[in-house]
């Protein structure tokens, strides 16, 4: 199968630091990529460059479009979750999920079942009343709303108990089976993939 | 046509690359220093000593040779900054962001000179240090806008990011400054008849006008000089860890 995203010769420098240089990788359907690096090594910047949020990198990113051609425009459904979870405190769990699914329209059952899948049962209570772990679970529930092409997740394994991290691994494997790919970042290698890119320029 | 345009653009980008800029500016700096200071001093001497005395205001009108050029500079530097801001936003040329940053304090200085000298001029002619005249007010606001740009730049630590932030602000400014000038004029006509006008002699004689033109030219040259100096300092500070700085600026071979 063709890779969904081809990155070649990507490099980026910020002020005096070369964040990364000559980065090459491909994201294949159903396979994951993990970007490992310490704080300030440019993990988040890399994700943002990939998604086109900022335009400070040099190099080529090619996305597979519907007709199996590569071009520079992102036409694959992408899901991005940054450092912060994207959960609004003043909305309930259900409303948060409904907001994330505005553009593709998801039935209420799907929302509820996604929430149940991650172990959130009080659907209508505000996110402000929930703990950080529970908010993290809501954000994981959003992965299940639709079959996205590539998931870009910034540090999914930080600040989680064992139970929650095994839940994440489970869900990632489940989604991989459907053909989705994950691009995740982290401080140290996790068990979900052996396909790792290390960003370690010496500061 | 397109080819020529691209050629010109590439040439400018190449000339604007920090090491090359530092090299050629080092060569022209002594010349610029000499020419600008000569024209500046000659213009001021001519205006302050050899031009005729105004029959109405007496010798105090000679402040015009300081006041008017700096007011003109205050406005045209903002125009310059807006052009730099546009280039920074559209083509992401690094040097134009630095130009914008280095021009801001100079523009603020000239606007401040215009304000202070205008106020000093006001004392003997109007009998008071400050009048809420339309031009004075809009110059004051221009000064505030310069201050806002400088303040914004210093508050952002990432300097490339700060350059782009102030280029956005300078673009907003260039759109709104004409509106400010126009609205202050209207405000004047509404509240009080504009009894005061800064150019008290409406038709100047040529021997008053010629030194004024020379002064304006001299001020522009001084601006070019100050800008080059500021930009050189800016470039070296931004890139002080690069190898070209130690080679060219410090003449060291590490």
């Amino acid at each position, binding site marked *: 199968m063709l890779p969904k995203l081809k990155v070649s010769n990507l490099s980026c420098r910020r002020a005096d630091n070369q964040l990364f240089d000559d980065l090459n990788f491909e994201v294949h359907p159903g396979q994951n990529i993990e970007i490992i690096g310490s704080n300030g090594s440019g993990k988040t910047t890399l994700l943002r460059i990939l998604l086109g949020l900022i335009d400070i990198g040099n190099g080529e990113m090619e996305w597979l479009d519907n007709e199996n051609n590569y071009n520079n425009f992102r036409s694959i459904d992408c899901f991005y979750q940054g450092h912060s979870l994207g959960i609004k405190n003043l909305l309930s769990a259900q409303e948060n999920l409904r907001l994330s699914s505005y553009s593709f329209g998801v039935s209420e059952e799907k929302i509820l079942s996604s929430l149940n899948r991650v172990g959130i049962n009080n659907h209508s209570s505000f996110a402000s009343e929930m703990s950080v772990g529970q908010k993290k679970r809501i954000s994981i529930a959003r992965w299940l709303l639709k079959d996205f092409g590539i998931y870009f997740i910034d540090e999914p394994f930080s600040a989680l108990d064992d139970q929650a991290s095994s839940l994440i691994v489970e869900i990632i494997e489940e989604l991989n089976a459907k053909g989705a790919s994950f691009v995740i970042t982290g401080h140290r290698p996790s068990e979900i993939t052996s396909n790792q890119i290390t960003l370690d320029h010496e500061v | 046509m397109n080819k020529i345009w691209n050629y010109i653009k590439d040439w400018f980008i190449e000339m604007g690359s920090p090491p090359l800029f530092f090299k050629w500016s080092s060569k022209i700096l002594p010349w610029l220093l000499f020419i600008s200071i000569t024209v500046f001093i000659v213009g001021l001497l001519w205006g302050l000593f050899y031009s005729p005395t105004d029959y109405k205001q007496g010798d105090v009108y000679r402040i015009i040779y300081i006041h008017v050029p700096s007011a003109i500079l205050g406005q045209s530097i903002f125009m310059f900054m807006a052009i730099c801001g546009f280039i920074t936003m559209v083509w992401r040329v690094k040097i134009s962001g630095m130009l914008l940053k280095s021009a801001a304090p100079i523009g603020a200085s000239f606007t401040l000179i215009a304000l202070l000298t205008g106020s000093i001029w006001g004392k003997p002619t109007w009998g008071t240090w400050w009048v809420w005249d339309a031009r004075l007010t809009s110059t004051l606001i221009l000064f505030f806008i310069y201050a806002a740009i400088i303040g914004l730049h210093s508050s952002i630590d990432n300097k490339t990011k700060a350059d782009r932030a102030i280029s956005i602000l300078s673009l907003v400014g260039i759109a709104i400054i004409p509106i400010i000038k126009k609205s202050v004029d209207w405000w004047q006509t509404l509240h009080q008849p504009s009894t005061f006008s800064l150019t008290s002699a409406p038709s100047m004689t040529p021997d008053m006008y010629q030194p004024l033109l020379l002064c304006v030219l001299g001020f522009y040259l001084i601006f070019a000089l100050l800008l080059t100096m500021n930009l050189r*300092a800016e470039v070296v500070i931004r890139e002080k860890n690069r190898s070209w*700085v130690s080679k060219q600026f410090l003449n060291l071979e590490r």
Partner: protein
Amino acid sequence: MIEQISTIISMDGNGLYVWSCLFILFFIIGINIYLPNRKLNRIYKENKAKAQ
């Protein structure tokens, strides 16, 4: 000669205004020349010290 100079300087009693304007002009331009050169000098000294 001295009288001529003093009439030029006093400018019919308005001299104070004109000369203070001139002073402000040179003072502010002087600051603008001094500051970037001081920055350059500081970096020059720092790097010289580092190199030796």
